[in-house]
């Protein structure tokens, strides 16, 4: 048996990185530009519900988009581990940083 990565692991780890950064940027966008928040609210009834839905959609769609041989050849376990850590760190800084600045300013 080969002890190698598979397409889905690569695809969904990459899509996690994209989805989590997308979610963080969407937080800043909707909180700073009211029409976006209103449009998100209009879509499901609550901006947070739409936010979750969009983040999950990005995760699932990109997961299948990236689950291809060319990405499997390009990424190894170490790269995926670093990508997971750094996308989490960046998204966390963006979200906590935004609300911290917003809270301190108000």
């Amino acid at each position, binding site marked *: 048996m080969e002890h*190698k990565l598979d397409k889905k692991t690569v695809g*969904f780890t990459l899509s996690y990185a994209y989805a*989590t950064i997308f979610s963080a940027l969407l937080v800043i966008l909707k909180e700073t530009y009211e029409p976006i928040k209103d449009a998100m609210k209009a879509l499901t009834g*609550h901006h947070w519900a739409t936010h979750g839905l969009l*983040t999950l959609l990005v*995760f699932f769609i990109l997961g299948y988009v990236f689950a291809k041989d060319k990405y499997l050849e390009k990424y190894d*376990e*170490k790269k995926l581990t670093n990508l997971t850590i750094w996308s*989490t760190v960046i998204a966390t800084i963006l979200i906590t940083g935004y609300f*911290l600045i917003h809270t301190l300013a108000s």
Partner: protein
Amino acid sequence: MFKIFSTMPHVIFGVWGIIMAIWAIVEILNISESNYKRLRTVSLLSSIFIWISYIVGGWWYWVYYGAKEVGDKYVIKGGPWPWAHGFFMETKEHLFFIVLLLSMLLVIIVKNQAIIHNKKFQTLALTVAVIVVIFGFGMEAFGSIITKGVKAGLLGF
């Protein structure tokens, strides 16, 4: 009364999700053919519990927490700890998505049996599970501050 008790599954399933992720860490650290199936089971359970916590918490947040003028959000904002909502709740509700996505990613990663003999693959799974645990505990801590914010708003201390 229903309002108070119906928020509890959010917390309880969140804790169960964390416990299952900790269990997954233990299984990854001792991975072999004999415990591989158990690793897959606890990883799946972690994701299922976190999903239940998300759905219940989301429903409660939508229906009760933000209820115009009477919801906890307004109690907090009108009280001495408005930052319990402004920072802690706002941050928590958005960081939660990271935990939700990672719990599903863990299930996908451990589905590949190569993890049994591939150390770097184990490190990837371990990283994901550890972040779930760290952020899970963070969610619990933030939740407790939000609850204190409501208490401060009601009692006025």
